[in-house]
């Protein structure tokens, strides 16, 4: 037993290592932490437990997606190892887990850490440590601030941009609207609200006749809806998360109010919001979309959708193909793979950040037709466009052109 196979492997490895040392010019490889010839380590925190655990499916899909990529040979021969940890949607836990990922697991970059509170808690830390903090799963506007936080780049269409697009639509189509707004009492709700108010500009003071808030921990929003209805508003901007979105849609219909009802994208899922609210009660709702809806029959035979369904069937069986979060997660994983591919063999943290800030006209097939992703070193807003859609009773029907928030 003098020459066990292990030893031979070891000897081979040493020989290879020596060769690499001897001929550095042979391989132009530059590695940051978490990268070897065979592996790229990424990290994320996800709310697998706690109040936002419905979003945990995003992290599970990522793991499944990277498994598929790895089975196909990985990225330039390197397999992606995503370490996905539970933070229970509690900021102190996010800090702890991210410190584990950065200091102990030494990941190359953070990918899709979910939730505004948790990301706020690690914002300064990751920028001080110069760890790429990429494609955050939150739409807060503050993630696109390359001057002060050059290591943080979000994914979602920013909440303010979304609000501004609704405002633009109202100013154009219904300038005499009397607007009532319901929003979640946290920075997400206030961010969308700010977008609406900024978008309406001077006209806002006259147009907005009522505002109401709720807490994530509230059981229902019924009384808020009745208050808003009592204000005499004819337009309702519904800035809520899925559970409350469903309640609000149902109540606004059942109470006989029936305003022009705009529901924000966060709660636009047919499967998890409109179906429980009642599809008949959801007819005529407006929202803003930037990626294809898995429940929309018009995409039934869309090649991108078929590819996604095939993936769901093969790699993520336990995932719900009606849940738009799973499609969103697929898009974000594709974007991450795009960034890593663009890095080539220079997998340092600096280069990952540089490539993330240089995404040019990336047209992912699951985005709405005509949309593309773009960043520059001074513009970290990855998604800047969207299209308004109306609910027909069975599906969201996009209408009008793809609108940019800046235009």
């Amino acid at each position, binding site marked *: 037993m003098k020459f066990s196979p292990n030893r031979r492997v070891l000897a081979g490895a040493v020989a290879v290592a020596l060769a690499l040392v001897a001929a550095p010019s042979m391989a132009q490889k530059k590695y940051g932490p978490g990268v070897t010839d065979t592996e790229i380590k990424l990290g994320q925190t996800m709310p697998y437990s706690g109040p936002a655990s419905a979003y*945990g499916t995003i992290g599970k899909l990522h793991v499944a997606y990277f498994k598929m990529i790895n089975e196909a040979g990985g990225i330039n021969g390197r397999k992606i190892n995503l370490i996905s940890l539970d933070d229970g949607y509690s900021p102190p*836990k996010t*800090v702890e887990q991210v410190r584990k990922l950065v200091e102990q697991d030494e990941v190359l970059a953070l990918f899709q850490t979910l939730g505004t509170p948790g990301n706020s808690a690690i914002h300064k830390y990751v920028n001080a440590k110069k760890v790429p903090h990429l494609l955050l799963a939150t739409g807060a506007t503050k993630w696109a601030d390359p001057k002060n936080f050059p290591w943080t780049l979000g994914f979602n269409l920013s909440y303010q941009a979304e609000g501004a697009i609704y405002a633009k639509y109202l100013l154009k189509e219904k300038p005499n609207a009397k607007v009532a707004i319901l929003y979640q009492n946290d920075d997400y709700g206030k961010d969308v609200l700010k977008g609406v108010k900024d978008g309406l500009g001077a006209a806002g003071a006259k147009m907005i006749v009522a505002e109401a808030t709720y807490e994530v921990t509230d059981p229902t929003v019924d009384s808020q809806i009745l208050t808003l209805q009592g204000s005499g508003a004819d337009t309702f901007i519904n800035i809520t998360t899925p559970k409350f979105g469903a309640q609000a849609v149902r109540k606004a219909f059942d109470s006989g109010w029936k305003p022009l009802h705009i529901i924000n994208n966060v709660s636009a899922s047919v499967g998890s919001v409109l179906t429980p609210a009642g599809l008949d009660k959801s007819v005529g709702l407006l929202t803003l979309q930037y990626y294809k809806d898995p429940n929309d029959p018009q995409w039934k035979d869309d090649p991108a959708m078929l590819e996604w369904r095939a993936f769901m069937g093969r790699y993520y069986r336990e995932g719900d193909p009606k849940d738009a979060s799973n499609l969103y997660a697929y898009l974000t994983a594709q974007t991450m793979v795009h960034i890593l591919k663009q890095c080539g063999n220079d997998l340092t943290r600096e280069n990952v950040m540089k490539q993330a800030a240089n995404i040019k006209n990336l047209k992912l097939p699951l985005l709405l037709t005509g949309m593309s992703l773009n960043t520059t070193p001074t513009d970290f807003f990855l998604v800047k466009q969207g299209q308004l859609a109306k609910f027909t009773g069975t599906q969201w029907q996009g209408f009008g052109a793809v609108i940019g928030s800046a235009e």
Partner: protein
Amino acid sequence: MASNQKPALSRAQLIGLALVLVGACVLPFVVSNYRVFQFTLTLVYAIALLGLNMLTGYNGQISLGHGAFYAIGAYAAAILMDKFGVPYWLTIPIAGAVCLVVGFLFGLPALRLEGVYLALATFALAVAMPQILKYKGFEHWTGGAQGIVIVKPEPPEWSSLTQDQWLYFVVLVCLVALFVIGWNLLRGRMGRAMVAIRDQPIAAQAMGVNTAMVKSLTFGVSAMYTGIAGALGAIVIQFVAPDSFTVFLSITLVVGVVIGGLASIPGAIYGALFIQFVPNVADQISKAAPWAIWGISLILFMYVMPTGVAGFIRIVAGRLQRWRAR
């Protein structure tokens, strides 16, 4: 003056305590900064648990709202540092004082409530706290839903420690001081009065214990401990936000007290280890249902150690002693 009183600690206990302290001082030099950070958090929780244990374990008042005092302490420290530029070490006693007053005042009306009724009243406080922190009128101070980001304190130059090691020692010093104070308090007249009220409130009153005063004071001191822990926690995490102090934090503290051992001072440390590390283990076992794993481990602990870890250790130590005496 020769005293016939039994010494407070036996020689073996003193040696054990010294060993633990030495171990605690060496620890940050042998593990990574991330682990040091985790242990710092554990110490923070231990302080909060000792506070809650005074109230629940020694005085028999159940509080499901100590997360609220933790939040008040955290916010007091964060606001003082962020808005007034107060040095971090000075915020700790101020946060404690604020919570002492708030706790005492809350304890006054709560006196009329016993057992589960008090539990409900304090629970209401915990439920309300995140919303109070988001209230528009306070937003200028609390930062509303956005919370407050705090700058991490730099270690003094002479220490040549990292930031994490320095914070660990700051928290350790606070912990030792608070444990010594707590130990003296609980062993003395006040402690006996607290236990008497827990076991026989009428008899205690008959013997001249001012029940109302002792109960309110206990509430105040308990809130003070938890508030100091909150302040330390805020400095360690460098961030406070309403989402950090949900009802679940209060429940977690109760779990820590019961798992650690009611009416036991070292129990606070065992409980803190449980609430800090078991959720991480649960996450590693199952991504699908980490809370189920957490719940199962909770049930297991309660079955195997119905008197908490501290009680379990006492029983084992007692058996060993008897076995040796034979």
